[in-house]
């Protein structure tokens, strides 16, 4: 990892650790205040625990023009971005993070081209719905590896990341704690429940948290929809197209709508927020990713709306192209953040458990000493 980013994060964390006013905002500060010195692993963990809610920046007495020049959300965002690169597998793909916008665009163009070509060349003789344009076998042949290989790559990344942040054998309740925190986006609540600072300086709102939740839950519903289709196909011999009152549609349509609304909202908020409180160089790639996710859901909904018409021949390759790009780039785009963040939340649950075991920590003792 880049030493200059680590050094800057360390400098800032040491100042924060002598202040501690932000203790209540999120999980980063209690984790930070449990340490007196910060190893590279500690800093990597803090960086991935940070949800960039920015509460600490706007509450900070030491932001520029103060000579301490604190901007913890930025320092942690840049370190976070760097940590994903440092742990990406295969290592050679790390540069994709820096060019995520370009990679997504190129991925889309190539995916469209291939899928259009396949739909023309290998158009099946028979088949209903979109299987009239592309056979089920062909789709599985493309998407099964396109889904599983990136997941395997991500698995490798997370394994080395886990080592970096000092992870220990995982207990089920720690995973549960991490999932609950992510599901509620607890770290975007601001500690007081008023939400976070993002689109309008120091105003606390729920906008980012709610749009992110729409995105997360929308995505999970879409994923569940696809999974239920697979189960119906292989388990029950029921093939697509499915009617509206089928499991894939009941999950997929609301999921698609939520995902569309969530990603559009996040993109809009992103245009309002101060870029200097994140990793400025990652802004374009993040925006491209949010819009890609929007395209996945929007083209999916269009495809459903167009079923039975000739538009399917065009919309199908477009939709599948966005999905393919999304899958293939998952380990090297903003999508990776969800996996790293969840891993950090599991680690945080572990360290909090240890802190509880050693009741009188330095932090609490020191707290009684200063007033």
């Amino acid at each position: 990892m880049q030493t200059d980013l680590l050094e800057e994060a360390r400098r800032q964390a040491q100042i924060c650790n002598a202040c501690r006013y932000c203790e209540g905002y999120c999980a980063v500060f209690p984790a930070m205040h449990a340490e007196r010195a910060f190893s590279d692993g500690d800093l990597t963990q803090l960086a991935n625990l940070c949800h960039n809610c920015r509460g600490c920046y706007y509450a900070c007495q030491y932001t520029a023009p103060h000579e301490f020049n604190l901007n913890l959300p930025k320092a942690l965002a840049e370190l976070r971005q760097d940590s994903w690169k440092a742990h990406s597998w295969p290592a050679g793909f790390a540069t994709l993070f820096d060019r995520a916008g370009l990679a997504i665009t190129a991925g889309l163009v190539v995916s469209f081209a291939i899928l259009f070509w396949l739909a023309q060349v290998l158009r099946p003789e028979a088949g209903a719905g979109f299987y009239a344009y592309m056979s089920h076998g062909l789709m599985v042949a493309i998407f099964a590896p396109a889904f599983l290989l990136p997941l395997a790559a991500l698995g490798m990344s997370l394994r080395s990341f886990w080592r970096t942040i000092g992870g220990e054998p995982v207990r089920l309740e720690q995973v549960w704690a991490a999932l609950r925190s992510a599901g509620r986006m607890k770290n975007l609540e601001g500690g007081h429940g008023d939400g976070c600072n993002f689109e309008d300086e120091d105003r606390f709102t729920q906008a980012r948290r709610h749009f992110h939740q729409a995105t997360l839950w929308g995505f999970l519903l879409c994923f569940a929809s696809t999974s239920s289709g697979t189960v119906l196909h292989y388990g029950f011999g029921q093939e697509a197209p499915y009617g509206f009152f089928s499991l894939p549609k009941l999950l997929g349509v609301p999921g698609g709508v939520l995902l569309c609304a969530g990603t559009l909202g996040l993109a809009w908020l992103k245009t309002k927020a101060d870029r200097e409180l994140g990793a400025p160089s990652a802004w374009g790639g993040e925006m491209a990713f949010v819009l890609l996710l929007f395209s996945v859901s929007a083209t999916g909904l269009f495809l459903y709306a167009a079923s039975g018409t000739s538009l399917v021949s065009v919309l199908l390759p477009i939709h599948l192209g966005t999905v393919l790009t999304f899958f293939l780039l998952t380990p090297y785009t903003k999508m990776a953040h969800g996996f790293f963040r969840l891993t950090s939340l599991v680690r945080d649950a572990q360290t909090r458990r240890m802190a509880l075991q050693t009741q009188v920590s330095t932090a609490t003792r020191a707290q009684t000493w200063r007033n």
Partner: protein
Amino acid sequence: MHNSSPEVLVIGGGNAALCAAITAAEKGASVTLLEAAPKPYRGGNSRHTRNFRCMHHGPLGPLTGSYSEDEYLEDLLKVTGGKTDEFLARLAIRTSEECLPWMEAHGVRFQPSLSGTLSLSRTNAFFLGGGKGLVNAYYRTAEALGVDVYYETSVTHLELDDARIVRVDATQQDHLFSLTPKAVVVAAGGFQADTDWLARAWGSAAKNFLIRGTPYNRGVVLADLLEQGVEQVGDPTQCHAVAIDGRAPKFDGGIVTRLDCVPFSIVVNKHADRFYDEGEDVWPKRYAIWGRLVADQPDQVGYVIIDAKSLELFMPSVFPPLKADTLEGLATQLGLPPDRLRNTVNAFNAACGDTSAFHPTELDGVATSGLTPPKSNWARPITEPPFYGYTLRTGVTFTYLGLKVDERAQCSVGNAPVANLWAAGETMAGSILGQGYLAGFGMTIGTVFGRIAGKEAADHAN
């Protein structure tokens, strides 16, 4: 300027000023607030604060248990040594209870009680994010109420005529202008950032003092009013000062420059001589006197010496300590005479006795014998390398000299009230705090008297 004749003009931009502006605006007055600092530094010393000391009869917001008026007053009298206007103090204490819900209703958020700090979660409510979070919330609230806020706008003169403020002169980026408000609230802090003024009270030693808070509290308005005979209160030669890390910036170092290691150390002056009992009492009860002790030493500087076994007993400070494997090496880094430091440490070590009862958070009675000055607690020999050192300087928090007010926060000239002038916050805190300081009480005074001043000013204007 949008409105050169606002009904209420608030001078200052910290907690007391904002409480006054919000209260006046809620009573329907047109309010203009002038903050001398630019927006990133708005909020005066309030942005460095952390908590609010609050009386309560039962659990209230983040506060546990109860904290009675008498107990609160007793705590206050302990630190002021009786130099307290009991009538105003009781008013502030009593009113603090209704302030907490008011603060929450106006956007302030408190931290849930911190584990392991039971004694504090009973008496002090901690702001989530600290004082700047509070200041941000109040600016949002004030602006939503239509208060006109001007940054980088300094008041230079209030024209007092026949016990009434008839005109207020101000500058904004070299542009001079005048205002004719119906009522004026002064909440512009003390004068501690004006080192020349400090030097007049303290002598040239004050030039070496560091100012823990805002550089914008230069006492311009305070001096202007005192010159025109507005009643003053508080000892002009007194300021609240603590010992802080000598490497702190001249201004605005705030909380992170605090050093909590003195009880586990020996402290020497530039001649490597000890000068006071480092273990006299627990640090929260002693840190305030060390500002003065260091101020009395040559060049207004002290040097803290600890060894490896004490390093983790106190909160980390913002600057890492200097470190050396030998005392002589440390002395060289600190600019102290190495032989003398060695002798001082040897004499101290020889005077240490049985240290088995050492307990870092209690008065453990582990004392030196036959040493002058003694160290009465936590006296363990300094023997274990590496050795660590910090420089200590005097950090001024606030000054006591201020405007005298009555229970309506109104200022007076001679024996008559100034018809349209009120004061709140640090600028009048000397009316209540004669000396010493009680954690979280500054914000109590600011909130209570800010609200009173805002209400009285709005009533006068209507």
